[in-house]
């Protein structure tokens, strides 16, 4: 078949074009996304006036950004290997639940993670209480080590799932052969695990490195100061504290450069998706002994991941009913923004995903938001809006837009494989029956894509619900989202109320994700 979009030299090309007739919605979506991303980027570049406005502190921020992202990614990957190995070769009650829980930090609001780590490792947390009882010097959760700790907390589960995915991809025949040959642990490590890790870990490292490069909420809550400021945080500080839009724009330019280079690197090395379901296989790798070691590894990992959240729950639940109306209002605002941004994400992602198998530009448009971090986008939008309105009055709509754009690449990644299969399998049949336009959407595309659509909607809602990014630039304190309110409670050291707000935020985030994912599963006619 001729490539799509060939010039209609002959009337017969129309016949081929009916197969790509989903062009218009996708074109509109692509133009909207391009305008919403490239507009702010252009505004940033114009205002930055080069990089001359940057001081030595800003260079430190760039260095810290790269350094902490690399360390966080390496630590997450290293720690993930024994955890994934234990999960791969052991069968025990609660194993499935533990693997499911490993998916949770992916949608956990980062500010809740920070809150949980403060509750455990903070000055009045249980770790310091224990150290004090033993007569040992205390530790602090603030600074570079806190930022890295939080990044490992948030990304270790992702790395575990990716490595576990690697174990799952080892052909059963090879495991059976290993068992038949009486492989011990050393032989399994050498002939099965190491080749698998060589294939999986680079992707895991890069995925985590990328996430940590744009870290803002963690740096905001746990970092700061000359030694623990990321570029994103520096943008925020230039904006809020120095009211220096030019310097903020110059910093945003640096962040764009970092994002683009990282994006190009990730395109060269496509990481396997690891947030899917169904991480299980019938036969486990052969193993003798090491039972105690595996138990210790799994116990430590579970404790590390659950303790901060459990502490928040214990502390926050009793205070839940003391939450002031302003927090509840912020929660309502957050839910409304999350729902709006979910709708927008899907409205953009679905036409782009359907067009992507035949039109490369659709995929490019959907990936475009990865060039702009949340704060870069916020800076650009602020600069664009400022001449016309007081940007503060648009804090909530801008947050909604930014959240939708940030979720778009994820949704597109989830939808594209299914959309490709759908087109390959059913395009001809649909065309031969004259099934097109809205009827095709209703009878073919939506039912066949219900599952990934539900999952994408869940992710988009959860990301938006937990987002603490653009809103920090635009808010005047009156227009609040729940993560912002939580951050302010933490800043005011009102820890019981903060824990209660964190409980509420966690509950709403997981509830939204669960509900959308469920709707998708129920709507799947298969």
């Amino acid at each position, binding site marked *: 078949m001729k490539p799509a979009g060939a010039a209609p030299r002959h009337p*017969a090309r129309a*016949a081929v074009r009916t197969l790509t007739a989903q062009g218009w919605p996708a074109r509109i979506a692509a133009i909207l996304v391009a305008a919403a991303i490239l507009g702010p980027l252009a505004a940033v570049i114009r205002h930055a006036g080069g990089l001359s406005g940057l001081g030595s502190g800003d260079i430190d921020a760039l260095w810290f950004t790269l350094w902490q992202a690399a360390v966080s990614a390496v630590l997450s990957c290293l720690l993930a290997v024994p955890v994934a190995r234990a999960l791969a070769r052991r069968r025990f009650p609660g194993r499935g639940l533990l693997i499911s829980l490993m998916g949770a930090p992916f949608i956990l609001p980062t500010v809740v993670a920070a809150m949980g780590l403060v509750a455990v490792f903070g000055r009045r947390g249980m770790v310091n209480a224990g150290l004090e009882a033993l007569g040992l010097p205390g530790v602090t959760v603030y600074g570079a080590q806190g930022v890295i700790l939080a990044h490992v907390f948030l990304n270790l589960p992702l790395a575990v799932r990716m490595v576990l995915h690697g174990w799952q991809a080892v052909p059963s025949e090879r495991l059976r052969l290993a068992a038949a040959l009486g492989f011990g642990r050393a032989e399994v490590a050498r002939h099965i695990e190491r080749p698998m890790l060589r294939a999986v870990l680079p992707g895991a490292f890069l995925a985590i490195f990328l996430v940590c490069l744009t870290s803002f909420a963690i740096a905001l809550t746990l970092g700061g100061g000359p030694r623990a400021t990321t570029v994103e945080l520096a943008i925020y500080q230039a904006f809020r504290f120095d009211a220096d839009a030019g310097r903020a724009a110059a910093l945003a330019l640096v962040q764009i450069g970092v994002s683009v280079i990282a994006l190009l690197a990730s395109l060269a090395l496509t990481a396997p998706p690891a947030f899917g379901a169904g991480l299980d296989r019938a036969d486990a790798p052969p193993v003798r002994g090491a039972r105690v070691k595996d138990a210790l590894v799994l116990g430590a990992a579970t404790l590390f991941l659950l303790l901060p959240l459990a502490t928040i729950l214990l502390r926050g639940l009793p205070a839940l009913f003391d939450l002031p109306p302003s927090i509840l209002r912020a929660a309502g605002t957050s839910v409304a923004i999350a729902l709006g941004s979910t709708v927008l994400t899907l409205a953009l992602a679905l036409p782009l995903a359907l067009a992507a198998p035949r039109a490369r530009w659709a995929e490019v448009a959907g990936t475009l938001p990865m060039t702009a971090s949340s704060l870069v986008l916020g800076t650009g939008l602020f600069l664009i809006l400022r001449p016309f309105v007081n940007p503060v009055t648009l804090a909530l709509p801008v947050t909604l837009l930014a959240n939708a754009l940030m979720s778009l690449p994820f949704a597109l990644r989830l939808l594209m494989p299914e959309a490709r299969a759908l087109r390959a399998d059913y395009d001809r049949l649909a065309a031969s029956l004259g099934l097109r336009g809205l009827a095709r959407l209703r009878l073919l595309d939506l039912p066949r894509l219900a599952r990934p659509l539900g999952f994408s909607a869940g992710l988009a809602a959860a990301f938006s619900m937990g987002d603490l990014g653009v809103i920090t630039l635009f808010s005047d304190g009156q227009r609040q989202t729940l993560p912002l309110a939580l951050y302010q409670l933490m800043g005011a050291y009102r820890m019981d109320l903060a824990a209660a707000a964190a409980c509420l935020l966690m509950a709403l985030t997981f509830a939204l994700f669960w509900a959308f994912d469920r709707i998708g599963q129920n709507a799947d006619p298969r």
Partner: protein
Amino acid sequence: MLTLDNLHLQLGDFRLEADLAITTGARVALMGPSGAGKTTLLSAIAGFLAPQSGRILWNGADITGMPPGDRPLSILFQDQNLFPHLTVAQNIGLGLDPKLRLSAQDRDRIEATLARVGLTGLGARKPAQLSGGQQSRVALARALLRARPMLLLDEPFAALGPALKGEMLALCAEMAREQGTTVLMVSHDPQDARALCPETVLVAEGRALAPQPTGVLLDDPPPVLAEYLGQTRRDQV
């Protein structure tokens, strides 16, 4: 009458020319070596492949640029003839209205057609709950309801056993006779061609030749067809 007027098809390096006419109500087999372009020719007639040049006419009207669903034909593919997420009745209903807004009368017609192909009462099932032969019958039932003047068969029954395949082809022929449908059918089996198609278009060496009487062609095949048929005969032993 279906006219392929100086039709040139190109798919990568592959080329096929066709300049022929098929009379209304004819049943024509497309025969020729594997890779000769039988499926490609059907794809072009059905509207999935735009020709490099030339025209496709139905009763004198140019349908070369018409969208597949608007053409005066139904096509059954090798596979993927049914939407697995829709019920049998819905799959058939798509033949009446692609938007699936079906009246009570439409539903009666669907039920009657189901009975006609021997699937009474199975309308509420999903395709996966049917056997391969039953699935073929559903696709055929939809073609029957659409009642377009042409029926293109791209070996839709190849995955069925020989007896079932023969049964399905006979059902097709019976439908075609009833509705006066023109049938174009890709065939690998000379017996099928002899039994069902009085005429055969030989597709070989980059050309689709004008229809010839099937018996004459098979009794005295040109070298390219003889070689192909010889292979099939050896295969069947």
